[in-house]
């Protein structure tokens, strides 16, 4: 049980996909305008990660080594399509807000990276917890970035106004704000990492 817990936790801090591995940045930056979009994207990516990790761990003995990447992509694309259809049916507003970044989960490096680096040689349960941990780590990173951007760029969190009379800096809601926030956060985490050693 302890082993599974370790697999789960490592994705959140030690191997955080966004801040430590620096993977899957396209959706991170594009959808982090508001916290609710960030959470939606995080859940969608977690679902795809879990599904693809489990299926690939199950099929690892059947998939031939030489054509493994196309096989992985088919598995991942299947889950992305399921995700797309569910999202269109049950939450069309979120689907419109995330736009083309929903089908683009298929080329998110995190998902393919975990399949290649982890799921294809581990057991199903380990892969399940790895996928869950990575998904939660990704979601938390998205929430952090989008909270900073939504608060400073629009003055709200989850649509609620926090401080009266706060004049938001609109630039943080623009694309350049996303790049600035991720750059500064990466620098900040670098400082933390160097201090520990």
């Amino acid at each position, binding site marked *: 049980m302890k082993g599974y817990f370790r697999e789960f936790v490592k994705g959140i801090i030690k191997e955080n996909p966004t801040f430590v591995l620096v993977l899957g940045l396209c959706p991170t930056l594009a959808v982090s305008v508001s916290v609710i979009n960030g959470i939606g994207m995080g859940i969608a990516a977690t679902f795809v990660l879990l599904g693809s990790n489990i299926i690939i761990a199950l099929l690892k003995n059947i998939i031939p080594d030489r054509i493994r990447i196309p096989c992985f992509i*088919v598995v991942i694309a299947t889950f992305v399509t399921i995700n797309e259809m569910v999202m269109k049916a049950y939450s069309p507003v979120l689907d419109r807000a995330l736009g083309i970044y929903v089908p683009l989960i*298929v080329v998110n490096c995190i998902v393919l990276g975990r399949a290649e680096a982890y799921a294809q040689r581990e057991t199903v349960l380990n892969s399940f917890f790895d996928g869950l941990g990575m998904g939660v780590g990704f979601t938390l990173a998205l929430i952090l970035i989008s909270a900073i951007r939504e608060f400073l760029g629009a003055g709200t969190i989850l649509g609620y106004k926090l401080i009266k009379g706060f004049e938001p800096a609109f630039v943080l809601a623009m*694309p*350049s704000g996303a790049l*600035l926030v991720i750059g500064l956060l990466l620098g900040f985490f670098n400082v933390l990492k160097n201090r520990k050693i």
Partner: protein
Amino acid sequence: MNPAQFLTIFISAVFIYNVILSRFLGLCSFVAISKETRPALAMSLSVMFVTIMSSIITWPIYRFLLIPFGLTYLRTISFILVIATFVQFVEMVIRKISPPMYRFFGIYLPLITVNCAVLGVAVLNVDMFFVGSKAIPGSFYYSVFQGVCVGLGYTLAMLLMSGIRERLDLCNVPKAVKDFPLAFIIASIMSLSFLGFNGFRF
């Protein structure tokens, strides 16, 4: 089909919605390979080639296969499969035909399969040039032209970035922001200047 539409596509794909600085597609390769100009140029040219080809290939698939059979929900799977196969094929052909060209481009080609820009342009074409699962007049030409322009936008951002980073090598920057973080901060300033093109909207 009207010529003004081409101008609109050009300006919006290269400047206003620049594939990297505004849409954030292909960001991983942008940060990883923009340290020097030469590899950056090779990567950009490969990306441009693949975005053009992916626009050319995915349009008929969507128009003649997915729409008539009511399978539009399969677009993600079919597009990514076709693009991945195509890239693999091109890599094999280049390796066979011209080893020097393979050394120049070849190593970047596998990376392009998972480059968001390539799948992104296919999905964008479908979103923009098909209305209610019907192709608008001239949509094939628009799609291909958008492929060209997205590639141009990628090249522009990549060249600007690699030029700046080459000079930064000689500067003394704080250790904490060395490499990736600084690249993002520069990209942010570049994106801010590209924001000026928003006034072009027509």
